[in-house]
């Protein structure tokens, strides 16, 4: 009985109508998927185009270099650009060593068990904390408890906690993609575990790792909510705005975009907002492009290809 049904099915599939039907389904699926891909591309183009259209008139050398203004029109974003890079650098300085080391431990050393599960679970939980909540945590700890007031270092540490899980994940993925056969070959030649990681695993993973770090750098660069209550919404007056001291308020570009729209009383809010948004966007896009180029060239360099 079952065989008879099956034979019927096969006969139907082989018939001209069956073939036509399947070809139709195949083509529809292809078209649908292609449309979805196109939609993503179109959205990005539209978005970038619109920001460019609004922001371009605001961009000038004077706008990019002069300090912001609290009351009158004509303020720039010089210190904000500086602060964005400053906090980015500081955050990476804290995040990269810890996240990469933890990632190496989890992927290369830890045996499956309670401890590894606990660390993994903690990291995943940490990764789901909304950035505004992390910002309030930073406010309580760095601003009030440690009495640092609004400071670049408080902001950077808050961003460190925020991005640690993601970078740890990136490290694990990068190490995971290194074939196990490399490790076995190295160990079979009498290398230690650390020797194998240092000479074989990390060089093979460095491209993926660098790409991950730079992509996360882009996220840090654009982070806003976690910084409002930690690094603050103001910059020091005059030359002090470009200080190297981490214990000073340091409003970043992304925070400035939010601040001008939400709180500021200057008459040219729209100009400053649009100009800043464009600068921010260009920077983040640059990070993405640089990530690809650097990642690829490092891979080539370390693997002799």
């Amino acid at each position, binding site marked *: 009985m079952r065989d008879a049904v099956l034979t019927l099915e096969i006969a139907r599939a082989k018939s001209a109508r069956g073939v036509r039907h399947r070809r139709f389904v195949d083509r529809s699926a292809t078209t649908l998927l292609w449309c979805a891909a196109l939609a993503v591309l179109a959205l990005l183009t539209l978005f970038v185009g619109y920001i460019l259209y609004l922001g371009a008139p605001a961009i000038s050398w004077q706008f990019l270099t002069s300090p912001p203004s609290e009351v009158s029109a004509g303020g720039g974003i010089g210190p904000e650009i500086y602060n964005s890079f400053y906090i980015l650098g500081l955050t990476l300085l804290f995040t990269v060593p810890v996240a990469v080391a933890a990632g190496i431990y989890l992927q290369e050393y830890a045996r499956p068990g309670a401890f590894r599960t606990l660390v993994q679970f903690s990291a995943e939980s940490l990764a789901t904390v909304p950035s505004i909540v992390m910002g309030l945590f930073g406010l309580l700890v760095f601003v009030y408890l440690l009495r640092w007031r609004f400071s670049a270092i408080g902001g950077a540490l808050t961003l460190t906690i925020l991005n640690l899980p993601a970078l740890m994940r990136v490290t694990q993925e990068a190490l995971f993609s290194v074939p196990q*056969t490399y490790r076995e*070959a190295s160990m*079979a*030649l009498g290398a230690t575990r650390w*020797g194998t990681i240092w000479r074989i695993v990390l060089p093979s993973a460095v491209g993926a790792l660098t790409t991950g770090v730079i992509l996360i750098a882009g996220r840090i660069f654009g982070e806003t909510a976690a910084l409002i209550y930690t690094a603050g919404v103001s910059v020091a007056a005059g030359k002090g705005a470009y200080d190297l001291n981490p214990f000073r308020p340091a409003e970043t570009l992304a925070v400035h975009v939010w601040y001008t729209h939400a709180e500021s009383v200057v008459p040219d809010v729209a100009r400053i907002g649009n100009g800043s948004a464009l600068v921010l966007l260009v920077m983040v896009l640059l990070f993405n492009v640089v990530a690809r180029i650097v990642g690829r060239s490092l891979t080539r360099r370390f*693997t*002799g290809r």
Partner: protein
Amino acid sequence: MQLIEAQESTGLKMDVRDLNVFYGSFHAIKDANLRVTEQMVTALIGPSGCGKTTFLRALNRMHDLTPGANVTGTVSLDGTNIYDSSVDPVVVRHRVGMVFQRANPFPKSIFENVVYGPKIHGERNRDALLSCAEKSLRRAALWDEVKDRLFRSALDLSGGQQQRLCIARVLAVEPEVILMDEPASALDPIATSKIEDLIGELKKDYTVVIVTHSMQQAARISDITAFFLLGDLIEVGTTSEIFTRPKDRRTEDYITGRYG
């Protein structure tokens, strides 16, 4: 020639006693005993999944790297049990090298691949490394094919060349025993015969243990053959004995083609 006679004519290199290997609760090798003779080729044969690779990997403590694997029994190398707690597995692997089923060169230049071992064992002198690379590549019968492109990526070599590079890489650390896990199974007949010729050369200076699924290969290159079935080491003998007068019914069934 009888097995005992053959083994006594040279020295005993490795002595495996009551070896058991478990993967979790799976009992992969059951009470295996094998004596590995110096300067001879010992072949491990048997159907897929019989434990021959598992047995081989126990000989240089590669199971240490597999989570959940557990080894009991003793494996002596020149009289010292390599599973003794005072023995450093890194030193064991320095003395007992391994060539894998699939050629696995590092994504580095040919030169860097060959001198990887000497480098991790502390050799820094570039001239010494260069001469070591040449010597090892010559021994692996690869020098003439790669001498003009030592600093190009090893991944651009053919499969057979990559496997000979892996052998050169093992020779560069000057091991005493070389373990080979089906080193020619992914290669074409010409590359295979090159590897087989090479193994014939190597046994003059080294002790070789090779896993192979090809009985013809075992018959061609080995002096001693051990037959595994479902985790049991069924029979060991000189290769001619095993292939002409097997003692065990199951060995006979296998070599006459009645098992997979």
